[in-house]
């Protein structure tokens, strides 16, 4: 009997506790600094071109084979690249969002963006091309290999909700 009553008391206590539900999509979830959303290409603002040199290492390292790219000879002369990326496709339907492509890139040319709301009605539109990837890479800062910023990071759990 005691066990059953204990259960009732426990659930009464929960009834009077604030629910832990987060009201998505009205409340966006607090993403951590390292959150791995869709991979994106980074744009070098100083020389106004994309950083990627089409070395193909990310495509070869991808466990899902979701990256396809072609390169082109580099003729602009702004940096000492030999090649520059011409077409770059990531099939986000296949991508496992593991971050290996970012880890292995020797030129820090890509980064995992915080975009995760990628649902579409047509699977083919999930294959993002170079321009879309550059678009979602806007405002994404390089995180790999850089020291952590000092101070509070965005999206920390609020300790005042704990008992």
């Amino acid at each position, binding site marked *: 009997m005691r066990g*059953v009553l204990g259960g*009732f008391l*426990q*659930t009464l206590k929960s*009834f009077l506790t604030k*629910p832990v*539900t987060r009201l998505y999509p009205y409340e966006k979830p607090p993403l951590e600094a390292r959150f791995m959303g869709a991979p994106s290409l980074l744009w070098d603002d100083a020389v106004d071109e994309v950083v990627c040199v089409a070395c193909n290492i990310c495509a070869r390292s991808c466990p899902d084979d979701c990256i396809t790219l072609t390169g082109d000879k580099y003729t602009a002369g702004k940096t000492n690249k030999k090649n520059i990326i011409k077409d770059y496709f990531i099939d986000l339907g296949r991508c496992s969002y593991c971050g290996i492509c970012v880890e292995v890139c020797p030129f820090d040319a890509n980064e995992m963006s915080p975009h995760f709301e990628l649902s579409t009605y047509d699977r083919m539109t999930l294959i993002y091309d170079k321009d879309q990837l550059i678009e979602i890479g806007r405002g994404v800062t390089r995180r790999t290999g850089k020291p952590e910023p000092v101070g509070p990071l965005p999206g920390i759990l609020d300790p005042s909700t704990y008992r």
Partner: protein
Amino acid sequence: MTNNAASELTLQAVPSWMPAFLVAPMIGGLSLADLIALVVLLLFVLNFVMIEIWMERKVAGHVQLRRGPLHVGPHGSLQSPADVLKLLTKEDLTPVAADPIVFPMAPYLVFVPVFLTFLVIPWGPLVLFGNFVIRPFDLGLVYMVAIPAMQGIGLVMAGWSSGNKYSLLGSARVVAQLISYELPMVIALLGVAMMAESLNLTTIVESQMKQGWNVFLQPIGFLVFFLATMSEMSRAPFDIAVAESEIVGGPFVEYSGMRWGMFYLAEFAAVCLNSALSTALFLGGWELFPGSHALGLGWISDQFGLLFFMGKMIVLVVIIQWARFVLPRLRIDQLMDFAWKFLLPAGFVNFILTAILQVFGFVPFAIGIGLTLALAAVLLATYQARRSPSTVALIRTSPEAVPTSQGLGLPV
């Protein structure tokens, strides 16, 4: 204002302001006022069921640290009408292997008896429209036990006619469960009938106002009745027949759309019904607090009795719903054991003690209580002796006591 001469099926003590055409008997002895009352009752039951479903989902949510329905209407209050609309617009699937006559009939046979039993519930005292009972039967208790028993037939029909092994299993479980729990329910009611010296539900409520609430006079009876009715409704923890995690819906698994909606409706209407019955029979019906009539505060109940009845009913409904989310499920044999080895003997003990009280007076009753407590103590003592010693104790090893894999002969 009691209904002693209630052998005629007419409203008792009709207030003077009611025009004659409303109360004149028309078809089959029913008057226009009767028909209006029936329609109001049906609408009330249907709407209360919708509110009840919403309440259940909200209670479930907050008990489980979440929120329940939120988006459809303020605080999700329009979720139930939305669900009803969804059920009405669903495709009406009848399995090929289903019996074409019995399969459609079963939901109605489950819902109608529940609604029929609403006719005898005394909702309130003599107020504006006369006694708040649709039909004050002198044999109210017998009626309220006999009519819902038809649900069992409906459930067996549903399970058998579906042509599905899971349904058959479910209906076999359900019929055993329903039959087993009828007996303790009836025995508990006998105690109530003896205390009130009548089978008429309104008389029982009024006798509670004089003697005190039956929940204090018949605590064992209340417990037995409450648990037995919870099981009759197949509510958790007695919901093995519709166990979602095993046989996914039991007898109802092949029903879709509004056919299933009828079963769902019947279940929630039964919750409402049994809470109302428990309120009327054990919690003093429309009395404000135990002893208020003796203190002269009876006029409050006479005016607002319906509200007090509803309030107590809703409290019981919430408790029944709450129990669903707290307790794990009993297995079918445990359920039957519970009925036959616990509830029925408890009901008998209650019956005998009440009989002693009514026939022989208080002193033999007190002796009876003493003997019962002694017996309970003996049973408890023997149970403690038979119980295995370590229920929750675990051995914790110190680091040295653990064998290495070489010691076990396992490869390194």
